[in-house]
């Protein structure tokens, strides 16, 4: 009798779990600007003192190549370039911890490869005398079992700083015709 009762309870729990998990519903409000959106915009954009859109967009493509990206898509009429690159995502610390705590299986689940997507958009500023460049980076991280570990928008300021340092240099070189 006790066994039957236990079994009943077990099956009820499973049923409840299935019912609750079911189909994930679509959350609301994800097309509302978040509180950080202004800060993000400042982090991701720079203005250049020129109205030469062609110069800016060709420099952007050049810089992306310099940084090891390959171009995926572009539409120069609206000032848009998208590029991506594959990179190593292994971190020795993470692997060491995983090996220590979880053995081989855990090591296989550590970050292994990442794809970084960059999307650059240029447009005239509101006053029309400057060009605004805005770049956004995303990354997708896979583990050694080829499963996606993480997807995220990159928000580290250093990455953006590095991109704009290179871009400023490239625009300067372009202007000097070097």
């Amino acid at each position, binding site marked *: *009798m006790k*066994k*039957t009762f236990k*079994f*009943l309870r077990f*099956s009820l729990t*499973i*049923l409840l779990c*299935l*019912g609750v998990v*079911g*189909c*994930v519903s*679509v*959350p*609301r*409000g*994800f*097309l*509302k*600007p*978040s509180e950080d*959106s202004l800060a*993000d*915009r400042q982090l*991701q954009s720079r203005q250049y003192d020129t109205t030469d859109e062609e110069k800016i967009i060709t420099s952007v493509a050049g810089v992306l190549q310099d940084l090891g990206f390959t171009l*995926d*898509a572009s*539409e120069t*009429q*609206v*000032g*848009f370039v*998208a590029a991506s690159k594959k990179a190593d995502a292994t971190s020795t610390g993470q692997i060491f911890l995983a090996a220590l705590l979880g053995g081989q299986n855990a090591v296989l689940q550590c970050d292994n490869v990442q794809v970084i*997507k960059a*999307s650059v*958009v240029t*447009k005239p500023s509101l006053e029309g005398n400057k060009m605004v460049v*805005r770049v*956004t*980076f*995303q990354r997708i991280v896979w583990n050694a079992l080829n499963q996606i570990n993480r*997807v*995220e*928008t990159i928000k580290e300021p250093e990455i953006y700083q590095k991109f704009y340092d290179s871009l400023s240099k490239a625009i300067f070189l372009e202007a000097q015709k070097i």
Partner: protein
Amino acid sequence: MIKLRRYCGIFVILFSIVILSGCATPAVRALESNESQVKLRSMQTRAFDTTDKKRMMQTVISTMQDLDFVIDKADFMLGSVTGSKFLGYAVVTMTVIVRPRGEKQLLVRANAQYGIQSVEDPLTYQDFFTSLEKAMFLTAQQVD
């Protein structure tokens, strides 16, 4: 007693099949949506009093970037912009198409997907158009 347990087992299996099959998406459903087409179109579309397609597209792009989207594709002739963003582990993709409506207006239509589901909630689209009209300094007009 054993009979009771067996019944329970069968019941659990049957119920699991019913629940799990609710989520299946056979190929037949590729062109299916839950809302009626007219309703869906009206919640996804707004008209703007401008004919500057380029500025409209650039504003759409910067609005999407403000909403944390990364632009994946754009085409000026088609007037299309496609972007994606991550919400935790889910991927949201959105396509916006800008096309002329009559002589004096542009029609903007957005459609979004959350994971494998189409977004069919009017308020979500309203949020997007609210941001867009602020950035464009124009009113988004409902189209029937």
